[in-house]
């Protein structure tokens, strides 16, 4: 189906508009027009830091969208792949670089190699994709609940391996003092620069995914979601398609993990456990499982809720570090799944269409409306 006129460039236009919004938000933080900071815009609830984190997780959630919404394959272990990216970057730019490889081959990796961390992001992608490829074939044979449990198991195994990895992964303390990313002598820091980097990657990932979804492969994936048997009958190589989209989603997670490691400069196992994977599923579900455009909004809403709750509930609750949001999230997840399983973006689109129809109807004369009803 070839789209006509401007619709042919719909994806690029959408990404362009999104990029302008992202740029404006970054510009507000950098230039401080009229002397107000970014966090003032939102009443001090959402800081600039949150925007960067939203960008990071958008990358992961877009992958999850393709996997769950388009191919219909659930993953409850995505945080595990996010962790692999983060740990590969963190270990290879700190410990291995200084201790492992340099002990064996002194002076092989030099401080002035600014491109080494970037190479390690690629290495993380290769490692993650490779692991996903190896375990993907047997795991993706599973269906429904079994797939959910299989991916959950894989995610938890990865998590425990990092937590129990001794000095190599730093156990529960993790790996600290990860260097910042640089291009030549241009450091990707202060935060504003990193913000643009993260969102550039996020937009690229969205653009790529939207194009995949609107291609032959995307149609094949949707056929799998509808019915694997029917898709197979129509000549879709379902094993290959499922595996490809799974590997792609984990590679996205790995990129985000690497970027997270260089942003946080400290990687420990805490954010990569079961709750981390669940958060990702909630974000994907909120934005709409099959909606790539919904991803940044799903992530954003979850973060806003988290920040608000953290600010408001801290005094209300005893003990417990930073888990207050789960009360609302559980409820939210259940309500969304019952009442609008296609997510907020779908509901918003529907509401928009309804409003448009409403205004169109106003313009028609009553007789037309009657005949419309009759037909």
């Amino acid at each position, binding site marked *: 189906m070839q789209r006509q006129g401007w619709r042919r460039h719909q994806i690029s236009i959408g990404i362009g508009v999104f990029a302008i919004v992202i740029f404006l938000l970054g510009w507000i933080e950098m230039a401080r027009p009229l002397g107000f900071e970014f966090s003032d815009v939102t009443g001090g609830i959402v800081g600039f830091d949150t925007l960067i984190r939203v960008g990071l997780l958008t990358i992961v959630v877009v992958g999850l969208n393709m996997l*769950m919404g388009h191919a*219909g394959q*659930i993953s*409850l272990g995505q945080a595990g792949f996010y962790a692999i990216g983060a740990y590969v970057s963190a270990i290879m730019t700190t410990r291995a670089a200084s201790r492992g490889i340099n002990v064996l081959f002194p002076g092989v990796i030099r401080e002035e190699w600014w491109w080494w961390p970037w190479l390690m992001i690629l290495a993380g992608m290769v490692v993650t994709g490779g692991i996903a490829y190896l375990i993907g074939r*047997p*795991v993706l*044979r*599973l*269906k*429904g*609940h*079994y797939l*959910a*449990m*299989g991916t*959950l*198991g*894989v995610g*938890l*195994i990865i998590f*425990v*391996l990092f*937590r*129990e990895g001794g000095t190599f992964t730093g156990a529960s303390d993790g790996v600290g003092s990860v260097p910042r990313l640089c291009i030549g002598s241009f450091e990707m820091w202060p935060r504003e620069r990193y913000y643009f980097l993260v969102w550039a990657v996020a937009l690229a990932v969205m653009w790529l995914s939207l194009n995949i979804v609107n291609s032959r492969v995307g149609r094949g994936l949707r056929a799998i979601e509808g019915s694997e048997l029917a898709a197979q009958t129509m000549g879709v190589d379902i094993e290959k398609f499922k595996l490809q989209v799974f590997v792609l989603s984990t590679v996205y997670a790995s990129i985000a993990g690497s970027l997270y490691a260089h942003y946080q400069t400290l990687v420990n196992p805490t954010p990569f456990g*079961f709750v981390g994977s*669940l958060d990702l*599923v909630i974000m994907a*579900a909120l934005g709409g*499982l099959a909606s790539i455009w919904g991803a940044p909004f799903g992530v954003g809403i979850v973060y806003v809720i988290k920040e608000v709750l953290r600010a408001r509930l801290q005094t209300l*609750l*005893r*003990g*417990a*570090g930073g*888990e*207050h949001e*789960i*009360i*609302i*999230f*559980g*409820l*939210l*997840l*259940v309500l969304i*799944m*019952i009442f609008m*399983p296609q997510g907020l973006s779908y509901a918003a689109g529907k509401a928009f269409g309804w409003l448009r129809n409403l205004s169109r109807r106003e313009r028609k004369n009553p007789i037309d409306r009657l005949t419309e009803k009759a037909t």
Partner: protein
Amino acid sequence: MAAMVLLVAIVLYLGHAKGFGPVQYVQLILDGVRGGSIYALIALGFVVVFNVTGIINFAQGGFVMSGAMLAVAFNNVDLPLPHALQLALAVVFGVAVTTVIGALVERLTIFPARHSHTLTLIIITVGVYIFMQGMALLIWGANAYNLPAFTTLALEDQILRSGGIMLKAQSLWIWGTLAVVLVGLYFFFERTLVGKALRACAINRRAAELMGINPSRMSLLSFAMAAALGAIGGVVLSPATRPIYDMGLKLGLKGFIAAIMGGMVSSPGAVVGGILLGVLENVAAGVTRAGFKDIFAFVVLILILFFRPQGIIGGGERGVEQ
């Protein structure tokens, strides 16, 4: 078979390196059976719900936690009652309230979405679990609590010793409970009309409906039963481990693994699966590192999903098709 021999050889080798004798192995296995019996109780809940509704209820772990926490809460209230009576009432309270919660969960979340995609139902039950854990955090905070041991009515349990092997008296309570529950379930499913209706629903929902059985009521009943089973598991376990708001996650997952090992549709399978899983992970963790304990359960899960998705006991072909 060869894999089994290899496994035993690896275990013995690792155990030898740690200087383990027969006493240590018996101890590990005994403790494993205790943990496994709890998994078995939880797995039974999974099986009941799956058989009747075709849903895997990831909120099962939440029922375990809620049973334990409610019992603790009741026991901590100052009442002019003898300790034994209050503890008994606390147990009943924990199980009864959790049963009601189970029924509510079915009516409020599963029932409205009963025609949804499997993916949706999975996410809903996961959401219910998170909500329950969140509520527990809100009510009880992040502290671990204590429930007195059933034998001594104190925090220190009586320990039976024999030839270097130690056994907490609570283990006997756990095994006794499992036995009573199994006998009870047997009579319920074989001898009562409601139990037979549930079984009919499990065999063929459509046919059961044509015979005048209300499947919606059976679904409600199965969730209530699963909640009760989970809560019983949570309550008898409480004196041995300290109940905390997030205890349900691991227990629920391991109960599920046990159910899968047993083929997902078979109650005896679930019990065997649970005990086997408990022993396996305890021995494996014993000869390697305690921190690895959770990995073994999931390695077992993944191996089973890959090689014998119908369960190691067999008879679970129906479960695979779902």
